[in-house]
């Protein structure tokens, strides 16, 4: 480095101390925020910046000497510049989504759903989309630790070999295991081995976000363990009992797939399903519902009982009339509607609800003849007798636990504070934790082993219906992490130690010798293992008496607090994922935070406004959290997202939001009552991506009921008061080549955000951090606008994905002084970053405000590992330039070139998929060639529901929308 470089260093070093510099870093590269806490990391940061400084120096001279380093030996199937796709699957809380992963030169960069996998059908959730970023998280735990000190896998292996012997553990009286609900055939087999070897050992399945209740309900109703699976596509009438099956109460996106199928209405003749939702907080399901009843979660049991009685599923009791006349009318209409659709309706209860509610739901479905039609019961693989988490706590309390193996769980953070698990762990002699990050539990454990990311590991998973899928690594474990199977193998007593061997052995054992190899390859290729779906089971008649007896309605006291899996960090496991932290909550549009969601009325009675911090106290634990006022929230209910307030976490997630587990209960994990609320004087301004929630009577989202639509199929055009507009500029001729366009069906879209993250991953969209979101500088190329409408007491919410509309007369193009944004002959509104000087004139003149400006160098903080996630086919934008949706032009070009290489064949419809379209679980987004009259998009644009936003200013957007339809019950209007 030059002397000037030296000075640069020194001055920087001085700087790095100053608070000013620190919040500058925070602002400029959130990924580095709090990088400056420790001296050592500070030096790292400076090196990093000095490096970029050095490069800057290089580029100054006329021709920097660049090296090309070809591999000494090339790998099979690897053609530089050509992506390779592999099938794998991702497990979330015991339920898998099958995935196809795009890898560039051995780096996974993009995740898509696997069409062959029943848990995906080609779509995948925002969480799955973002999981690839987790792979390159520089804050992942990089090595095993013993009592927090760096150790090695070898040391651990030696220790484990010696520890997990009958000699040492006897029958395993003091040996306990703690894991997520297992949904992996090979692991389940391994568990069986372990428990065979140590019969007295106990196994606990711990889940912070409860999902088991559904099946416990089935067990309660039918007296046998059954896996209930629902078919929303076949239901004409759906009643959701506090169940956000379109959002955070489901672990895969299948319900969205099935539900939206029945919302997509081609013609006035076609039918449409109807959704009733009873819920405490305003969820995506509530937004999609035709009728929504805001009811505190604790009163849903009562509602379910009354309904059951109304329908004669339970013996009628006289005195169980709760709520006002409105609610009674609602209930009777629902009851009638369900009865009228016997066999074609569906009642689902949310995992937040206790088992009795689920039992009631099963009883109702049985009563309504839905079993075998919209509900099916499968017989899951036999599970061993499991212990409860509370039992584990008591056992530790009474020193009955000597060895505790925790596989990929973080109970110290995620268990209700009242369990005091952190302190308990200290009493366990050999606490062993396997985890991807050095989290709260790792910190409190004797041993921590760093877990491999699922994209680095061999393994298998089960979908909601039991279908097994293999996981295969796309890349060598970056930090030499290990899988649960590898850790468990020591206790299982078998010789294999590598997950590959364990997995292969397990599966080859399932198949006849002869076809073992071929089946193995097929399973790897397809991403599903044939014939592994759980067998269908005959549930028999529900035991109404038992259900009746258990479903006792208790009087609720005071305000209840409900907890829900956060759409971004789930239960905290994704807390360090910047993409997800910056993805707004689908309903509240809140980013980088969680809040106490409070109804307007409640807020008034409490005298609080958005951002005021309130203290919620329960059993000696107090949670201080800012308020966010949400219309539609049940008055006597406060909702808080899980997964925030991580103490021991990476740089992105540390100290973001508040930890709701402080006031949760071991007994009723879904919600608690009897919480005392007190105001504090403090405020915390919240970062939301949408500040105005009314459409101001503008015809942006056009909506009608099915009836109105049948009466006037062209209702969507009533608001268009213009005809034959002309432009002063010379208009483009669009004869040459295909003409790209997009249609988005607002009836199908549920607003799940999958498109937002998919776009972020595909197009290298940077994150900006909390402060910048507050300033209104988020960078998402596609956003989902959410407007409230209707009566403030019972508001409705509508969703609209908005990205660049690729106007044919684009206002941004005429005003750009340097022609950095111009029109392609195929109707794309091109954006040449390298030409942009950043006047922001185009963004000002964009009526949809979809253009995004790089106010800072947002990629500055990205280290070498972080860079690996970038899509090499898309430019990483620098500071000071404008960017926006390109209709995934890189994908268009790729396919066009491929077609050219194949002898200039024409492109097929659906060959080119935009990232948002490909992942959309509702298939609401359709992209294609408008010139081809048979293309799906061209046909959609012929539909009478098709309209464009702001057509009157003659910008001729290429993206159009299909008006939203609701299907209310005539009597509820």
């Amino acid at each position: 480095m030059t002397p000037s470089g030296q000075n640069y260093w020194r001055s920087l070093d001085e700087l790095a101390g100053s608070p000013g510099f620190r919040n500058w870093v925070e602002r400029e590269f959130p990924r580095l925020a709090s990088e400056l806490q420790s001296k050592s990391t500070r030096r790292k940061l400076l090196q990093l910046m000095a490096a970029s400084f050095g490069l800057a120096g290089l580029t100054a001279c006329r021709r920097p000497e660049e090296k090309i380093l070809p591999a000494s030996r090339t790998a099979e199937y690897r053609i530089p510049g050509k992506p390779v796709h592999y099938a794998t699957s991702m497990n979330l809380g015991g339920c898998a989504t099958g995935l196809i992963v795009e890898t560039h030169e051995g780096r996974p960069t993009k995740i898509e759903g696997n069409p062959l996998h029943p848990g995906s059908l080609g779509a995948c959730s925002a969480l799955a989309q973002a999981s690839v970023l987790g792979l390159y998280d520089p804050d992942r735990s990089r090595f095993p630790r013993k009592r927090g000190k760096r150790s090695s896998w070898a040391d651990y292996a030696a220790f484990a070999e010696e520890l997990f012997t009958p000699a040492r553990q006897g029958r395993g009286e003091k040996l306990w295991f703690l894991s997520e609900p297992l949904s992996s055939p090979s692991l389940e087999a391994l568990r069986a081995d372990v428990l065979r070897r140590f019969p007295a050992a106990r196994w606990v399945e711990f889940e912070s976000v409860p999902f088991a209740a559904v099946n416990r309900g089935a067990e309660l109703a039918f007296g046998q363990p059954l896996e209930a699976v629902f078919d929303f596509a076949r239901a004409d009438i759906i009643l959701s009992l506090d169940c956000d099956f379109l959002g955070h109460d489901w672990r895969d996106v299948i319900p969205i797939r099935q539900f939206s199928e029945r919302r997509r209405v081609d013609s006035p003749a076609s039918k449409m399903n109807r959704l009733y939702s009873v819920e405490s907080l305003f969820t995506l399901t509530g937004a999609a519902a035709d009728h929504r009843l805001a009811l505190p979660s604790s009163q849903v049991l009562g509602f379910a009982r009354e309904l059951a009685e109304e329908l004669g599923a339970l013996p009628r009791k006289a005195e169980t009339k709760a709520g006002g006349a409105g609610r009674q009318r609602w209930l009777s209409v629902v009851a009638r509607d369900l009865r009228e659709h016997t066999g074609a309706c569906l009642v689902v209860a949310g995992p937040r609800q206790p088992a009795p509610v689920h039992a009631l739901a099963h009883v109702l479905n049985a009563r309504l003849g839905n079993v075998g039609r919209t509900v099916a019961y499968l017989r899951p693989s036999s599970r061993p007798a499991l212990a409860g988490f509370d039992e584990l706590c008591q056992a530790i309390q009474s020193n009955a636990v000597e060895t505790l193996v925790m596989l990929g769980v973080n109970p110290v953070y995620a268990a209700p504070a009242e369990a005091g698990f952190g302190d308990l762990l200290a009493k366990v002699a050999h606490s062993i934790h396997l985890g991807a990050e050095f989290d709260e539990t790792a910190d409190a454990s004797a041993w921590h082993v760093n877990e491999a990311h699922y994209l680095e590991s061999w393994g298998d998973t089960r979908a909601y219906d039991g279908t097994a899928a293999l996981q295969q690594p796309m890349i060598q474990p970056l930090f030499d992490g290990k899988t649960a199977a590898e850790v468990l193998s020591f206790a299982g007593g078998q010789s294999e130690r590598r997950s590959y061997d364990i997995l292969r052995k397990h599966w080859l054992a399932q198949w006849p010798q002869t076809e073992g190899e071929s089946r193995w390859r097929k399973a790897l290729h397809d991403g599903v293992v044939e014939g592994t779906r759980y067998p269908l089971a005959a549930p028999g008649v529900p035991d109404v008496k038992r259900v009746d007896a258990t479903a006792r309605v208790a009087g609720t006291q005071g305000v209840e607090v409900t907890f829900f899996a956060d759409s971004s960090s789930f239960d905290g496991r994704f807390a360090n994922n910047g993409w997800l932290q910056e993805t707004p909550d689908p309903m509240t549009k809140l980013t980088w935070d969680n809040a106490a969601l409070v109804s307007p009325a409640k807020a008034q009675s409490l005298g609080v406004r958005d951002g005021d911090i309130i203290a919620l106290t329960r059993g000696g634990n107090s949670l201080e959290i800012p308020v966010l006022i949400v219309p539609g929230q049940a008055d006597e209910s406060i909702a808080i997202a899980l997964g925030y307030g991580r103490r021991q976490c990476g740089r992105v997630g540390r100290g973001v939001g508040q930890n709701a587990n402080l006031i949760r209960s071991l007994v009723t994990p879904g919600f608690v009552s009897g919480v005392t609320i007190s105001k504090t004087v403090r405020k915390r301004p919240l970062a939301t991506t949408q500040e105005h929630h009314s459409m101001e009577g503008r015809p942006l989202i056009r909506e009608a009921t099915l009836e109105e639509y049948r009466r006037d199929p062209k209702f969507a055009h009533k608001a268009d008061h213009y005809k034959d507009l002309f432009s002063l500029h010379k208009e483009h001729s669009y004869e040459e080549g295909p003409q790209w366009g997009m249609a988005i069906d607002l009836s199908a879209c549920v607003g799940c955000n999958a498109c937002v993250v998919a776009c972020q991953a595909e197009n290298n969209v940077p994150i900006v951090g909390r402060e910048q979101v507050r300033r209104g500088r988020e960078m998402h190329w596609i956003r989902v606008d959410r407007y409230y409408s209707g009566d403030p007491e019972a508001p409705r919410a509508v969703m609209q994905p908005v990205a660049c509309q690729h106007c044919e007369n684009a206002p941004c193009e005429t005003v750009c002084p340097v022609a950095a944004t111009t029109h392609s002959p195929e109707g794309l509104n091109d954006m040449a970053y390298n030409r942009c000087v950043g006047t922001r004139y185009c963004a000002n003149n964009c009526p949809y405000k979809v253009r995004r400006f790089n106010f800072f160098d947002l990629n500055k903080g990205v280290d070498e590992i972080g860079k690996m996630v970038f899509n090499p086919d898309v430019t990483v934008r620098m500071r000071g330039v404008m960017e926006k949706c390109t209709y995934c032009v890189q994908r268009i070009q790729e396919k066009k070139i491929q077609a050219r290489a194949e002898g200039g064949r024409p492109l097929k419809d659906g060959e080119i998929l935009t990232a948002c379209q490909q992942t959309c679980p509702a298939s609401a987004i359709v992209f294609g060639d408008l010139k081809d009259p048979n293309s799906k998009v061209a046909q959609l644009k012929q539909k009478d529901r098709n309209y464009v936003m702001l057509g009157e200013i003659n910008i001729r957007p290429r993206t159009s929308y299909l008006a939203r339809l609701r299907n209310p019950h005539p009597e509820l209007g």
Partner: protein
Amino acid sequence: MADLAMKNPLPPDVPLVLGKPSYGEVTDAVSRIVEKKPPRVWYIALAVTGTFTLILGAMLAYLVATGIGVWGNNNPVGWAWDITNFVFWIGIGHAGTLISAILFLFRQRWRTSINRFAEAMTLFAVACAGIFPLFHVGRPWRAYWLFPIPNADLGMWPNFRSPLLWDVFAVSTYATVSALFWYVGLLPDLATMRDRATTPWRQRIYGLLSLGWRGSARHWNNYEKAYLLLAGLSTPLVLSVHTIVSFDFAVSVIPGWHTTIFPPYFVAGAIYSGFAMVVTLMVLARKIYGLEQLVTMKHLENMCKVMLATGCIVGYAYAVEFFTAFFSGNQYERFVFVNRAIGPYSWAVWIMFTCNVFAPQLFWFKRFRTNLAVMFVISIIVNVGMWFERFVIIVTSLHRDYLPSSWGYFRPTAVDILTFAGSIGLFLTLFLIFVRFLPMISISEVKGIIDAPAGKKEAA
């Protein structure tokens, strides 16, 4: 020059110069200021404004090193104080050219004692204005792409459909022509300074600057021609520049910007603010340097009248804007103006109304028109008001346009504020340097309007 003024048929009703000074005395009165040591207040003022100029430099350096994010601009408010300041300064610039060119062609003899002053102000204002379009871009080091420079590697030209490009031409032309006009006007006086110089350095510098002016008949002849031509050349510019600046907004599709009355409205506003600024500075300079003799109350009163007139035009424009919005029946257009009146930025709008429409009404009364204190205060109020007018037009239109989902609110950062303060500092610094080293009143022209006793002429 002189004889042009002489040709004026109308005899001056009120003397434009008091106390019948001789040519020599006029020369003295003006030159003295430049020749003798400046008053203490000059040093103090320079210290203050100089500091702000340095702050401006620091802020711009920080901006270029870090990114536009150091300002409060966001999505949807892509332009805020940056372009507000640009339009503000360009506006200020207008009075100068108007006075020196248009009033000259209209034979307004009273302009002679203020035109030099006003033109200087124009130049400095344009200099300040130029900073903002340059630094408001995300990559200033690429700003040269806005100029049609032939380039072999890209073979690309700028987009001539973009109003920003028209700005580039309009503003640069304006700057060049006004600079020439001003300099040409200066020549005879520079020569005077040279001849009166007492130190070799002054003699050399003024000598070089005066380009060998010796006041010969031929010199005067060419001079008059050149001056007349330049006057003719700059006259259309007075109207064109702000018209084109207004196109930045009028040509867009954003409600509140997309308006046909912008050109006249902007020009009127520009002249309005320009005169306000002249009055502000003139009142001070006149007092400090005791120029009451040459800059009489009549001059100031005339300027107040111009302010009153343009102020009313601006007020009318405001009213018409609201009416058009209502009459258009366009819900987006209507909303913008309702939002201006009662929305989050209504405070700014009402400041604008008060300062620009109500305040100048005082000038209907001679009592106020001729009261230094009053006109000084009002001129400052008007400057404030005109800055807010631009702020209102730019920010309130952007912060809530078509899609309510992307509505936002703009808050300036310290950098925003300091940058603007810095630009004021730069403006005043340049001005102080001007009054220190150049004759702030056109000696030769003033002589043209006094009828001095014969035989004294050679004193020039």
